[in-house]
């Protein structure tokens, strides 16, 4: 099971783990309520929305009435999540059984959201003050550039021409878990590091943000403030300028870090300075269960295992090199081929076939993305086959025992080997058995004792 993926997906676990008081305080912010609502499972969303105007407690029985026999596990997960996030509170009555009531703060905020819409804490600045705002195209390129630069620095600091302003100590925190470094050697990617690279941008971003927040306590910032600021930021409008004066001290520091990640762009006017959220920031509150960021793909895979990647990014080359053999590099094109050897390399590094395939599918070039399947079936099948090939024959060094003097001795030996956990095979008819080499010595001891 890819460990990183779980961590990245369950950002909301971090929120749920906050103490009750802090959670209640978080819910006073309508944006957080909305972001949390979006992060829930579909069934939980439905429960929240139908409870939105009901102030009285609802019995669990009346909720369960709706659930089909096959859906009970989903129902259970949804309710557990709601209780965990303290959106629902549970009470028990002898006559009616368990019943749920919605968190009052959350409920009021949600009602307000529904009838009035949400109001941002800051207005976009009028266009006569701001000079020359970047177009959405420019902004997107900027964001991607920043992000790639950051990633490249993260995995391979030697390759970067332009260093980001993120402090080395912060960088080391991000690298924790993704890279290992034995002294004097160049750092190597760990298994989760490889998997991290193949995740889509949103998931990567959440992983980084999560690390960032969990580290914030060390520098004396309340993680709760950070969480609420991040979520709030995600509701700002892409491409609009917002005055820096509206931010407090901590937020201003944070936003500088976020610029390095490509989440916002900072601009300085004559008197004022402002920040412009990019798509990366506004995508933060996209439901984490959804792995679809609508970005342009660049990879085309052909049925002959040749791969064309229309990209000039070094990061992309690095990623493709994880599982394919790069053959040519032209200014805007990388030609690589997926070979058995290159894939075996990837598998050795702990990348799974499914990850490679989903990477190819998610980054399929617009031309092939329309097709079903976007990656030729023979290629995906072959990748899976090669992976399963590795698991076909398992070699275990073993010792073979034969010609036992009697059945009793044989059976005692079998039992002994089984107890040691080293019995690989037995043939009671012919009195033969095979044991793992690890227990060979003990086994010999045992047999000697028998004599």
């Amino acid at each position, binding site marked *: 099971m890819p460990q990183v993926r779980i961590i990245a997906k369950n950002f909301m676990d971090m929120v749920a783990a906050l103490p009750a008081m802090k959670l209640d305080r978080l819910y006073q912010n309508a944006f957080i309520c*909305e972001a949390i*609502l*979006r992060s829930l499972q*579909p*069934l939980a*969303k*439905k429960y929240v*929305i*139908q409870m*939105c*105007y*009901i102030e009285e407690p609802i019995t669990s029985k009346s909720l369960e*009435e*709706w*659930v*089909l026999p*096959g*859906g009970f596990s*989903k*129902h259970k997960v949804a309710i557990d999540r709601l209780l965990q996030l303290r959106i629902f509170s549970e009470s028990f009555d002898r006559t009616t059984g368990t019943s749920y009531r919605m968190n009052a703060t959350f409920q009021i905020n949600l009602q307000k*959201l*529904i*009838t*009035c*819409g*949400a*109001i*941002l804490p800051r207005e976009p600045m009028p266009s006569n003050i701001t000079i020359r705002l970047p177009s959405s195209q420019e902004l997107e390129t900027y964001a991607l550039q920043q992000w790639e630069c950051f990633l490249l620095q993260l995995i391979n600091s030697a390759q970067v021409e332009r260093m980001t302003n993120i402090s080395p100590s912060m960088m080391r925190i991000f690298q924790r878990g993704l890279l290992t470094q034995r002294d004097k050697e160049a750092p190597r990617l760990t298994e989760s590091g490889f998997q991290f690279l193949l995740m889509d941008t949103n998931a990567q971003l959440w992983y980084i943000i999560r690390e960032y927040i969990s580290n914030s306590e060390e520098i004396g910032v309340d993680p709760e403030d950070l969480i609420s600021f991040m979520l709030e930021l995600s*509701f700002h*409008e892409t491409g609009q300028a917002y005055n820096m004066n509206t931010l407090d001290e901590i937020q201003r520091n944070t936003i500088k870090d976020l610029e390095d990640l490509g989440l916002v762009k900072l601009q300085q006017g004559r008197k004022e300075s402002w920040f412009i959220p990019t798509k990366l920031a506004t995508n933060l*509150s*996209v*439901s984490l*269960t*959804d*792995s*679809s960021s*609508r970005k342009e793909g660049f990879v085309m895979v052909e049925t002959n295992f040749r791969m064309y990647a229309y990209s000039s990014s070094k990061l992309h080359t690095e990623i493709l090199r994880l599982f394919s053999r790069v053959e040519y590099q032209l200014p805007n094109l990388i030609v690589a081929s997926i070979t058995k050897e290159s894939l075996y390399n990837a598998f050795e590094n702990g990348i799974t076939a499914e990850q490679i395939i989903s990477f190819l599918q998610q980054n*399929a070039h617009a031309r092939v*993305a*329309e097709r*079903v*399947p*976007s990656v030729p079936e023979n290629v995906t099948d072959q990748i899976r086959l090669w992976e399963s090939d590795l698991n076909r024959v398992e070699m275990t060094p073993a010792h073979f025992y034969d010609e036992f003097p009697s059945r009793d001795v044989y059976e005692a030996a079998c039992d002994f080997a089984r107890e040691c956990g080293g019995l690989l095979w037995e043939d009671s008819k012919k009195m033969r058995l095979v044991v793992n080499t690890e227990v060979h010595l003990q086994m010999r001891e045992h047999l000697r004792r028998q004599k």
Partner: protein
Amino acid sequence: MAPAPSKLYADDVSLLLVLLDTNPLFWSNCALPFSKFISHVLAFLNAFLRLHQLNQVVVIATGYNSCDYIYDSSSATSGSSGTGKMPVFCSKLLENLEEFVIRDEQLEKGGPGGGIASSLLSGALSMALCYIQRVFRSGPLHPHPRILCLHGSQDGPEQYVAIMNSIFSAQHSMVPIDSCYVGAQNSAFLQQASYITGGVYLKPQLLDGLFQYLSTVYATDLYSRGALQLPKSVGVDFRASCFCHKRTIDMGYICSVCLSIFCKHHKKCSTCGSVFGQQAQSDVASSSNKRKMSDS
């Protein structure tokens, strides 16, 4: 062309096409004032949009003389922010709705004087299905579409063929048609539409709680419907309208070639042009006389 499931977004991202009945003749006689109705609906739409960033709403007004798209959340710039009174998109929707009603009224003055108190459901359904087809073909990723008919006017039997065609088209592209009927009697068309496409038909008893009906039943996305039991209608009115006089009939004649329904014996099928043989002496022996099922 049915969409390949792999093209869909994961989970619960939905495209909701709302067909809003704006028949003035109905609303002027309805127990539920239109202002209340529309505010419940707007609140529901807002709540629906809050559920997922990628959720999309398209509202089609089903008018008396025409129908038109009045709101599409994918083309609007910002959905979430509000003016304090109501979400921005609501005021936008209301503006469009007002313009639509004025246009609809002008058509009324220009057209023939008389009419039937039903709105153009068939037209709105077709528009919704066209929109869905466009979404299906637009790209590799698209949300799960479903149609919600918020209807109150009575059925117009003259639209029978067109509506049935739309229903079958929806069934073919696996788009469920939910219907919430706020009128006095049950609507046979909508019952059939929901029954055939696997949607939910509901006639709210307590109109003051319309929002609760909408949020409890119709907010359920297709993904969650796999785990939940939604209200089932007890009986469906399966009666058909004849093709010749648009009457709702219990028994009739069916063309053996194209299955067109007629209330009287014809020499020739008006749909496919097949020539029928002599009508048999007695009705019982007539081979072309088939009983339509009138119950489930």
